[in-house]
């Protein structure tokens, strides 16, 4: 499928590790700028026709995601105790392992961050016991790249629909997706309460866009690949464009396990396992890590050496730390008539009235509320909170309410804590003999309070919309997440951050890092839009450095 291949012995300009949200964008930017690029992807490459509507395959047999069987992880809430190995079921750091990364299976909620997200520490002041900090860049600096994501990746939405929308230089390229019953009800309830619901910006083509088909409303977004090519995955957008330059090779089934350095303290390429698990080495002038907030940190820590004894690019000690999941809660609601939420995209309306933190609430935090599918059949039927019937006629009656049910989920802030981290498990090895990810995570009390606060607001909205019955799922401390943020935070001070404002590692001149790990704060959930805006910006800067022979 790639239009160009390189030999391991070819000195390519860039080895990029990870073909997801950030890696795909950076590959295109660098290839279009004239550089030779190998884009490494640990998973396989799928074609649109190979995606299926099969819950069992994708949710229970790791059809697209990392697998506990081959790459277990361990988890602990308390950093003082040994972590428990997770060798089956959902992994703590859960992501799609395929060309396109998690953009193949995401829900495609594409919220921009707001101005406040980048300077919240200055506005609110410090929060004791946390590493709460400003970003080294502002919304205004990132805005042109958000717009680039809207247009180059493809986002559907309605500019100006939200009164508090951050400034934007262009409207969305596509209209919002057609509203679903969940969206109508969220909008109805929110308006009754004086709130300001608006069409959800989604990275799904509402109409045919740039040689891709428009959404066919099949309903299989969350956890599934899009056979209609409507979902704006990097698999369908920037990656083919990178290949079309004739300078980018996408190397699937290639697991990068070590980034070596030479005596000058520069990286020289990447060690990787190919599909046959043979160890290979690709020479490169510079390396870009975009493997996600868990794997990027793992790779740096696993690349320790005499010169970098605490892990590569880790003189600050920050690699792997300040992991943020985004706080999360959900409310289910049952209505009189059929909603049929299994049809079409997952979310069509959202409420951002509680985006900003407000000291009057008694805790730090803010977030967004959506109305959505209450999810696909198997997950919905399995996921009954404690106290709800799980057998007998009462359970069967619940199952029969499927078409009349919707969910609202709440997405919010997570505070950066030094103790929440990705590190190398001291005992656990994966099927390739490499050290496994150990996740240490305990939500800050404010994050849980924020999740409960947003959940109560969502419950009020759904009741105002006329729900017959609402059900708050217990807000429990997170033990796993698909949002993996903050582990190589961006900053101006090399003592307290891993990468600079251009995503160059402070310690190694020709090593760049850009993905969710770059985040300084968590935003209010839905991080992919910001990951991709950062990636467009990073790609532009890295290309500039390469032109100046400064890589």
């Amino acid at each position, binding site marked *: 499928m790639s239009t160009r291949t390189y030999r391991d012995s070819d000195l390519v300009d860039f080895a990029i590790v990870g073909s997801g949200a950030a890696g795909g964008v950076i590959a295109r930017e660098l290839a279009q700028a004239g550089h030779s690029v190998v884009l490494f992807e640990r998973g396989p490459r799928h074609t649109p026709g190979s995606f299926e*509507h099969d819950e069992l395959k994708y949710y*229970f047999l790791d059809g697209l995601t990392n697998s506990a069987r*081959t790459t277990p992880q361990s988890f602990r809430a308390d950093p003082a105790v040994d972590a428990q190995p997770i060798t*089956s079921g959902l992994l703590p750091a859960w992501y799609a392992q395929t060309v396109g990364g998690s953009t193949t299976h995401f829900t495609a909620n594409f919220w921009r961050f707001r101005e406040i997200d980048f300077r919240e520490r200055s506005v609110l002041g410090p929060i004791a016991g946390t590493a709460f900090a400003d970003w080294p860049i502002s919304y205004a600096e990132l805005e042109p790249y958000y717009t680039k994501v809207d247009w180059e990746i493809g986002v559907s939405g309605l500019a100006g*629909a939200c009164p508090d929308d951050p400034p934007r230089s262009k409207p969305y390229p596509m209209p919002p997706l057609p509203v679903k019953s969940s969206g109508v009800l969220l909008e109805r309830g929110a308006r009754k309460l004086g709130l300001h619901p*608006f069409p959800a910006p989604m990275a799904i083509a509402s109409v045919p866009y740039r040689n891709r088909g428009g959404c066919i409303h099949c309903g299989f977004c969350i956890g599934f690949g899009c056979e209609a090519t409507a979902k704006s995955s990097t698999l369908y957008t920037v990656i083919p464009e990178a290949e079309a330059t004739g300078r980018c090779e996408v190397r699937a089934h290639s697991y990068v396990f070590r980034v070596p350095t030479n005596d000058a303290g520069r990286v020289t390429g990447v060690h990787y396992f190919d599909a046959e698990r043979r160890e290979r080495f690709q020479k490169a002038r510079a390396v870009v890590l975009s493997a996600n907030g868990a794997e990027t940190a793992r790779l740096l820590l696993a690349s320790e050496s005499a010169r970098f004894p605490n892990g590569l690019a880790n003189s600050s000690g920050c690699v792997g730390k300040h992991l943020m999941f985004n706080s999360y809660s959900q409310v289910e609601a049952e209505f009189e008539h059929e909603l049929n939420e299994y049809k079409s995209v997952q979310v069509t309306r959202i409420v951002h009235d509680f985006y900003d933190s407000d000291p009057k609430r008694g805790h730090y935090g803010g977030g967004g509320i959506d109305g959505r599918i209450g999810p696909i059949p198997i997950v919905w039927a399995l996921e009954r909170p404690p106290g709800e019937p*799980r057998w007998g006629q009462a359970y069967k009656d619940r199952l*029969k309410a499927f*078409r009349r049910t919707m969910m609202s989920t709440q997405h919010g802030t997570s505070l950066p804590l030094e103790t929440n981290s990705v590190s190398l498990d001291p005992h656990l090895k994966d099927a390739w003999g490499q050290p496994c990810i150990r996740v240490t995570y305990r939500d800050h009390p404010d994050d849980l309070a924020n999740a409960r606060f947003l959940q109560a607001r969502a419950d009020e909205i759904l009741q105002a919309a006329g729900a017959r019955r609402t059900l708050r799922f217990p807000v429990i401390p997170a033990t796993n997440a698909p949002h993996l943020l903050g582990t190589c935070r961006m900053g101006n001070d090399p003592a307290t951050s891993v990468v600079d404002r251009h995503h160059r590692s402070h310690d190694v001149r020709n090593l760049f890092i850009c993905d969710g790990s770059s985040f300084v704060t968590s935003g209010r959930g839905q991080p992919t839009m910001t990951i991709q805006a950062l990636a467009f910006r990073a790609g532009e800067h890295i290309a500039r450095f390469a032109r100046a022979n400064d890589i």
Partner: protein
Amino acid sequence: MHTRRGFLGNIGAAGLGAAWWAAHAPAIAAAAGHAHAGMAAMAAGAPPPQLTTLSADEARDLDELTSRIVPSGDDGPGAHEAGVVYFIDRAFGSFFAEMRAPILKDLGALPRPFPDFATLEATPLFAQLHFLTVLGLLADPSWGGNRNELGWRLLGFENTHAYAPPFGWYDRDYPGFAP
């Protein structure tokens, strides 16, 4: 995306790996083919497919227990009619092989007649059986359950490839978004 946090994470033996998948893909494909053939045969009035990994006693016990989770009744078929036990039989021989031994061991240790579900609900066996019942009821029929899409019909889920608005009762007369 946000997947289901917490609750699904508690389903211990549910996740099986890619390596296992790769090693067993041909067997699964064969099993899926078998399932299709079985369904076609049933549709034609033929006897149900043969059990491959469960004994007749085990199958009868599992049928009884899973039918208590989703009972049959005047309001529609349940786990029994959807062929959940045949799904489990297939799963134990292929894609969830690791679940077979612990479940059958716990099943064998259950007192007869079976205890009330109010007692059973707190046990690991119930969690596993609930998991398998739901999958046997609602997974794509190619996996051996959800016979004639009875599980999907119970929910009202349609297996249609594409839809067009309006999708539900509440978005039918939506006048359009006004800021």
